[in-house]
């Protein structure tokens, strides 16, 4: 694992990022969680977060969310979610082939990765972001806007990618 000081400073982590990523790293190293279980609990977390945003009265006004296409609307909702949760530094969400959209995250700017930040030494991925985004965007949009196609995140070099079907 990279030097913790370097990760903390370069990725601009807050204490909750450190706690979250290292906590899940520990569970993963004990064999208690995997990508499959992270997908399931991320869905639950999305529901909880929606209730949190509702309670705090900080849900975006759906009529005011800019975007001429469903992908642009989803992109702006992802922007909003990332502002609230500060999940990643650099990312993009754009149209891909076959009516899909792709979320591309610069891996070295992710703040909640149980592996890259928390230091989990396990095989496979442990990314909560795709399922969280899918479910929270849909919950906020009050309709099925995104359908996650990949079963988690796919690593391509230093980029982490998740593909979504964009629904009208």
């Amino acid at each position, binding site marked *: 694992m990279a030097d913790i000081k370097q990760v903390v400073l370069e990725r601009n982590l807050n204490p909750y990022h450190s706690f979250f990523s290292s906590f899940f790293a520990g569970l993963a190293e*004990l*064999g*208690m*969680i*995997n*990508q*499959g*279980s992270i*997908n*399931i609990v991320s869905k639950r977390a999305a529901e909880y977060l929606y209730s949190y945003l509702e309670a705090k009265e900080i849900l975006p006004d759906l009529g005011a969310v800019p975007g001429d296409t469903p992908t642009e609307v989803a992109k702006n909702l992802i922007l909003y979610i990332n502002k609230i949760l500060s999940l990643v530094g650099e990312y993009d969400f754009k149209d891909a082939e076959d009516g899909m959209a792709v979320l591309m995250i610069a891996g070295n700017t992710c703040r909640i990765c149980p592996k890259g930040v928390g230091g989990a030494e396990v*095989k*496979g*991925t*442990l990314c909560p972001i795709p399922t969280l985004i899918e479910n929270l965007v849909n919950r906020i949009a009050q309709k099925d806007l995104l359908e996650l196609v990949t*079963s*988690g995140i796919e690593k391509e070099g230093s980029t982490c990618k998740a593909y979504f079907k964009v629904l009208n």
Partner: protein
Amino acid sequence: MAQTIAAQLDKTLNDFERNVPHVQATAVVSTDGLVIASRLPSDVEEDRIGAMGAAILSISTRSGRELERGEMVRVLIEGTEGYILIRSVGEYAILVALVEKEVRLGLLFYEAKKCIQLLREIL
């Protein structure tokens, strides 16, 4: 014409279920808890079977090593209504079977071993 991997996996799981009376459901999942193939009743959530099966095998494997019990052969969970059998299929996959209480365990273990050999060849 050659069968797809999905079709081959489905056939192997189907044969396993036919050879062992009282096997109710089967799944092949990746070690990170994602379902590769399954023959599950509609009321069983596939995602949960995958995630839990992989986690149980992973914890069991780790426990076996930490407590010096050697390499994991199988995990058998016995409930009042039946069993859950979990076995590793090579390095990247796992077989999960939901079995009724009336099963002959010797037959189950024997056929599971055969099934795993076939699954390894496919994967």
